[in-house]
């Protein structure tokens, strides 16, 4: 079983070297391949990726986090990987946690492995973000009738059979709405406790403006995912 870990990056030049070093130190090339997706960065991200000799593709313009993930998914489908995972490039995820997710996926008992900050002893979510995260998790749990503690975590793995669902749902960040659609299509999901560090450098993609729009969009996507009829397939027809 071989997986592809997609690492979307937008203006993350300051964090990339650390993220690459962490992944190289913990993740074996026999387990997974790494694919960085530069999402039209204006800083030196591309130079860093080249200097670090990593495998990457580059959007000529910024398309957004979700589209960068989808580019990685298309790559995974084109190259017959057994599963595709997402790992953030801002230095908040730990590569050692990724191993736990891979282990769960390799057990063959689940199709989707979701990282959860809430299951770990300590987490860095505070204030509105914490409350929002709890609320999204609650809504997702109620709809799927399965307990989720953290749906807004970007660290997750999805088995190939269900990648078609990720490409077809109306989504904004592939969080709660994705889990709703995946459970609806028959995927077996589980959560694995992970630790998330504070962002090391650079700016978050979320701002005051997105903080207002984000919950509205997310709930809209979750509702759309809940009323849709999502079918898993081997998604060969979806590949670009």
């Amino acid at each position, binding site marked *: 079983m071989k997986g592809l870990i997609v690492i979307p990056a937008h203006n993350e030049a300051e964090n990339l070297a650390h993220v690459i070093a962490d992944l190289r130190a913990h993740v074996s090339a026999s387990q997974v391949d790494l694919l960085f*997706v530069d999402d039209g960065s204006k800083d030196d991200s591309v130079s860093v990726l*080249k200097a670090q*000799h990593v495998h990457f*593709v580059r959007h000529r313009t910024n398309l957004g986090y979700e*589209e960068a993930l989808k580019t990685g998914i298309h*790559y995974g489908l084109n190259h017959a990987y057994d599963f595709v995972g997402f790992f953030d490039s801002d230095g908040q995820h730990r590569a050692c946690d990724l191993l736990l997710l891979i282990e769960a996926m390799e057990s063959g008992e689940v199709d989707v492995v979701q990282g959860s900050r809430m299951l770990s002893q300590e987490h860095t979510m505070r204030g509105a973000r914490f409350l929002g995260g709890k609320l999204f998790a609650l809504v997702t749990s109620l709809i799927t009738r399965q307990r989720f503690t953290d749906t807004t975590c970007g660290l997750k793995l999805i088995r190939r059979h269900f990648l078609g669902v990720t490409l077809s749902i109306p989504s904004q960040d592939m969080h709660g709405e994705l889990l709703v659609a995946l459970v609806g299509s028959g995927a077996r999901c589980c959560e694995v406790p992970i630790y998330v560090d504070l962002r090391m450098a650079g700016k978050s993609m979320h701002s005051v403006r997105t903080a207002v729009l984000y919950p509205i969009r997310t709930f809209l996507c979750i509702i759309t995912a809940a009323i849709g009829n999502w079918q898993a397939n081997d998604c060969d027809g979806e590949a670009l």
Partner: protein
Amino acid sequence: MTPQSMLVISLFIVGTMVWILHNLRQRRLTAGQAGFWLILLAGAEVLTLFPSLADVVGRLFRDDLLPVSWISFAGLLSLIVYLLYLSMKVNRQREEFVRLVRELALKEEHKPGEAPDDDA
């Protein structure tokens, strides 16, 4: 409506129609978009020149709608429908754009150890 008001409104409408045709010629508007606005303006021109028509239409409704009410409502409805149509069209174009950017990205894949290509 006084003849002077009719003249000013008619001139404004005709001027806008000429401007739309100019934009169509300059390919800043498509024929479909220009056609929509020309039909809307032509309707406004007819109602400007023959205001009694608005009363006739108003009387067709059981509640005997005031001309200004149904014209405002019809105008607003047309704009909402057209804006919705444009939103969908913009989204279709965006999806095509995303597909092309993605296709290019996947074609220009950078593998470690490969010679650097020209990133123009």
